[in-house]
């Protein structure tokens, strides 16, 4: 790759504008094809049988009656899938989660599957499958699972990251630690200390579209999978590896996506659909119900976090310490580790230590959820910071400004920051009219900061110029949050043509090189970098073709505003050639014109945000109403500002829901009590005010346009911002999320 990704100042003509989205018409007219909208001739309906038990040995599965039911074309259990017991442990866990091999590890764990000619038959067949369970004691609470006498979920788990290695297994799969300085010495010097324990309940991403796919495995060993996913290349890799297929023989096409937020970065039912299709010899469509999505996809961790922060009289934080316990479902994970990395990332700290514990519980496998693990850590830390500011006697914004990380600060998780946005977002909040607006009775205001790393990763992009001079851009990062519009803008910017001349599509896995999935806020960051690189490669060819048409040396041809320009006095009188003219002549100047790019997009700039929330609490019922909400976040460079604002608002909306009402509720029997949107309460439109946004642009030095990822940071501050607002409204520190009305009322009466 001969491409310099570093940022240089420039003026933009397309980037930064707000054209209408290219996927808009299809979506509002119902023509967009989502996961469940793909169909094939002769397709069967796949359904999965799930464990009603939180923890049980599977003694025996008798599928004979189901197999004999007319209309049933395949019945599947783990016995039909490759046994990865002696292979890669991570792959074993993924497959075991898709279809339990020895034990059912949570309510909803898949134990068998059928493919039948229609949904009714498939449903009937599931009832005919006889599973013999031997019930085991279960544990669903993170603190109870952490306790030494807890029921053991996996006897091969010995805590890693501790020395010496423990001599007996436990539910703690890993301990991680970050920080620098001497925390104990620092704390001893503190004039004020806040020490608190916080708890957050498990939440689901709550995407509107359930997981859905159509799998078609042909007898010649080739296969197709149409699926709703955030990363079709990753799905291909995982499915092929799990089922013993050649990756290149499996073509995966991603559908439009009705939300993912991290939940569609993992395979759930897709390997099962492929295995059913392989067994039945017919295409199989598998669509999860909402109940299945809640019980058996990948919600985020429940957490329990201890925080201790000390400050000097002058407002300097002298020491910061946190211990974070995150549930990771019944398999080893690395979620507390991320929480431990992000917890204090907003601050410049001499002495800081965070310790994370990954805790196995009998709940569905934890998956990524928008800035995974960061919101809970921020809730704990930003709540404690707020309380500490009060103790010191400083305004919470000023206190944070005093301690904010800057360029050159060594982050609590290791690296040294480049130019960053935490200080500027705090200054913007300090000067925001929202901070000065008056509050009424029973109302409170809270603010909080948040951090997210952002990610780059492997990216492959093709830019093809048609004979008519219009441009097709094929990318491999699934468009979750509007990247097709943004990437069309970037291609138009680089080539110097109009946005309307570019169409961006998401290519399938057989037509592009490998792409990492759309996670880590990487879609627009990495694919725009690859698009700039591809466009520059295309421009090089366009210049060559123009030089050929003019019969002058290519070094004398420059590219300006969509045209080849002959430079220098010798060629000064040649009229410039447009992209259209060069494209029209391409058949006689060497054939099609295209630019390709294969990169690892390094240098994703870290992202910071500060949020403000006003809330009113009914002291008699504990009911809350969010009155006003403001998001201030650094975008690096907002390619399509409307989409950026949408990301800010969306993250805030999800965070508010998490803060106030969303939670997985388990019964004593270890079963999920609220596997539906009636009792898993995400906010509806009328629950939220218009969320105001302010975009700051502190360029990322590692991207040609200065772009940073914007998708995730917005969900990091809300838990804390809302909790600080409620605490200020009622005068009691809220320690448990969600702050549902019964919890608020109980806190008021405690």
């Amino acid at each position: 790759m001969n491409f310099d990704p570093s940022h240089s100042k420039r003026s933009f003509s397309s980037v930064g504008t707000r054209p209408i989205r290219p996927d808009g018409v299809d979506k509002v007219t119902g023509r967009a094809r989502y996961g469940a909208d793909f169909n094939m001739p002769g397709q069967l309906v796949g359904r999965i049988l799930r464990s009603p038990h939180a923890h049980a040995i599977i003694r025996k599965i008798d599928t004979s009656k189901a197999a004999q039911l007319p209309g049933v074309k395949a019945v599947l259990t783990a016995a039909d899938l490759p046994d990865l017991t002696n292979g890669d442990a991570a792959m074993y866990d993924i497959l075991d989660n898709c279809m339990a091999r020895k034990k059912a590890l949570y309510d909803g764990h898949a134990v068998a599957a059928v493919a039948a000619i229609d949904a009714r038959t498939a449903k009937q067949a599931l009832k005919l499958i006889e599973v013999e369970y031997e019930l085991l004691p279960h544990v669903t609470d993170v603190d109870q699972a952490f306790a030494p006498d807890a029921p053991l979920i996996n006897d091969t788990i010995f805590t890693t990251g501790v020395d010496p290695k423990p001599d007996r297994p436990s539910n703690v799969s890993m301990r991680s630690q970050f920080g620098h300085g001497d925390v104990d010495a620092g704390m001893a010097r503190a004039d004020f200390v806040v020490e608190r324990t916080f708890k957050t309940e498990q939440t689901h991403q709550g995407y509107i579209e359930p997981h859905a796919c159509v799998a078609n495995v042909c007898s010649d060993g080739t296969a197709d999978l149409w699926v709703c996913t955030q990363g079709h290349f990753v799905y291909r890799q995982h499915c092929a590896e799990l089922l013993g297929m050649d990756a290149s023989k499996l073509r995966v096409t991603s559908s439009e996506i009705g939300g993912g937020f991290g939940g569609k970065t993992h395979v759930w039912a897709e390997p099962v659909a492929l295995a059913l299709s392989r067994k039945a010899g017919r295409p199989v469509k598998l669509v999860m119900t909402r109940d299945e999505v809640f019980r058996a996809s990948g919600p985020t961790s429940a957490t329990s976090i201890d925080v201790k922060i000390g400050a000097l009289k002058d407002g300097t934080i002298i020491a910061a310490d946190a211990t974070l316990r995150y549930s990771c479902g019944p398999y080893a994970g690395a979620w507390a580790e991320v929480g431990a990395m992000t917890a204090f990332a907003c601050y410049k700290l001499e002495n800081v230590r965070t310790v994370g514990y990954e805790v196995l519980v009998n709940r569905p496998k934890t998956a990524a959820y928008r800035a995974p693990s960061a919101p809970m850590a921020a809730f704990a830390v930003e709540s404690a910071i707020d309380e500490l500011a009060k103790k010191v006697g400083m305004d919470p914004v000023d206190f944070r400004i005093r301690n904010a990380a800057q360029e050159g600060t060594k982050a609590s998780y290791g690296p040294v920051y480049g130019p960053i946005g935490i200080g500027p977002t705090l200054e913007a909040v300090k000067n925001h009219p929202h901070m000065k607006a008056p509050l009424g009775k029973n109302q409170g205001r809270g603010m909080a900061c948040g951090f997210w790393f952002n990610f780059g990763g492997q990216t492959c992009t093709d830019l093809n110029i048609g004979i008519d001079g219009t441009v097709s851009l094929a990318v491999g990062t699934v468009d979750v949050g509007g990247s097709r519009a943004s990437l069309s803008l970037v291609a138009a910017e680089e080539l110097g043509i109009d946005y309307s001349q570019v169409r961006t599509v998401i290519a399938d896995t057989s037509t592009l090189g490998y792409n990492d999935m759309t996670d880590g806020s990487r879609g627009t960051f990495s694919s725009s970098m690859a698009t700039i690189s591809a466009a520059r490669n295309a421009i090089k060819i366009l210049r060559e073709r123009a030089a050929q048409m003019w019969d002058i040396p290519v070094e004398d041809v420059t590219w300006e505003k969509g045209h080849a320009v002959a430079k220098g006095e010798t060629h000064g009188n040649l009229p410039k050639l447009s992209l259209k003219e060069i494209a029209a002549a391409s058949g006689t100047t060497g054939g099609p014109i295209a630019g390709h790019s294969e990169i690892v997009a390094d240098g994703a700039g870290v992202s910071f945000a500060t949020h403000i929330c006003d809330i009113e609490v009914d002291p008699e019922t504990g009911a809350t109403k969010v009155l006003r909400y403001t998001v201030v976040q650094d975008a690096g460079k907002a390619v399509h500002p409307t989409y950026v604002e949408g990301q800010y608002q969306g993250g805030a909306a999800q965070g508010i829901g998490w803060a106030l009402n969303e939670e997985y509720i388990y019964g004593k029997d270890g079963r999920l009590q609220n596997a539906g949107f009636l009792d898993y309460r995400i906010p509806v439109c009328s629950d939220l005010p218009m969320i105001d946004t302010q975009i700051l642009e502190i360029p990322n030095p590692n991207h040609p346009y200065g772009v940073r990822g914007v998708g995730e940071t917005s969900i990091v501050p809300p838990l804390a911002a809302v909790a600080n607002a409620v605490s200020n409204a009622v005068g009691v520190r809220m320690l448990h999320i969600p702050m549902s009305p019964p919890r608020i009322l109980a806190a008021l009466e405690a």
Partner: protein
Amino acid sequence: MRYIRPSSLEDAIGLLVEASGKAAILAGGSDLLVRMKGGFIEPELIIDIKAIDALRHITESEDGFVIGAAVPCAVLGENAALRRAWPGVVEGANLIGSKQVQGRCTIVGNLCNASPAADSVPALVAAGAKALIRGPAGSRTIAVEMVPVGPGKTSLAPGEIIEAILLDKRQPRSGDAYQRFTPRTEMDIAVVSAAVNLTLDDQGVVQSARVALGAVAPTVLLVEEAAEILTGSRVDDKTLDRLAAACSGACRSIDDKRGTVEFRRKVAGVLAKRVALAAYQRAGQK
């Protein structure tokens, strides 16, 4: 599974008798379809009563209102006379689900679904509404609170259909009100709810009252002690405090995913006070 859309109530009852317990009645479907989709019930026959013209109207007479079993809740909200006479009943019906759901769902369906948290039932109970029931043995009329006997269970005999809900003609200086507690503003289900219906004498003193609580017992509760506290009062602060205590005390609630025993007890009292005041103000304006 069969689907039939009879055009007369007699036909519907005939089909219901014939199916001997394996049929379900479809009006709005906002409970039935959800229960079918969730796999809780698998009826062999669906009897859609929306084509029965007699069930599709709200009629007002000398005796009061007759609300047909197939009238969607949204239509209750559009009926000015009903809204004027029984605002509490209408506000209960217009809190169910969302605007879209209200365009389908019916108060009879809400009653027969027999959820203790049904939004339209407490106000109907407070209003002293009656259910007109038709069955193979003819017609009978019972108080609405006699219809549900426990969660998901009604007192209807095999082959019986509720034809209409009957509301008395409104007395002067009367008012009713309903409020529920939900964490969300809509698309939610009552954690606790309360309805009060009262009539004042010409001095502004409560002459008669009925108080009902939802979601605090296996069925909607008619709290007679609370009604006695209101009767003879001007709904002053002291009365309201006693009312709240009586309502909290009447709760036979459970801890579940929607709320705790303690929360329901407390909020039942809070809501009772709020609806009593609202009903009192409405009564005073007439």
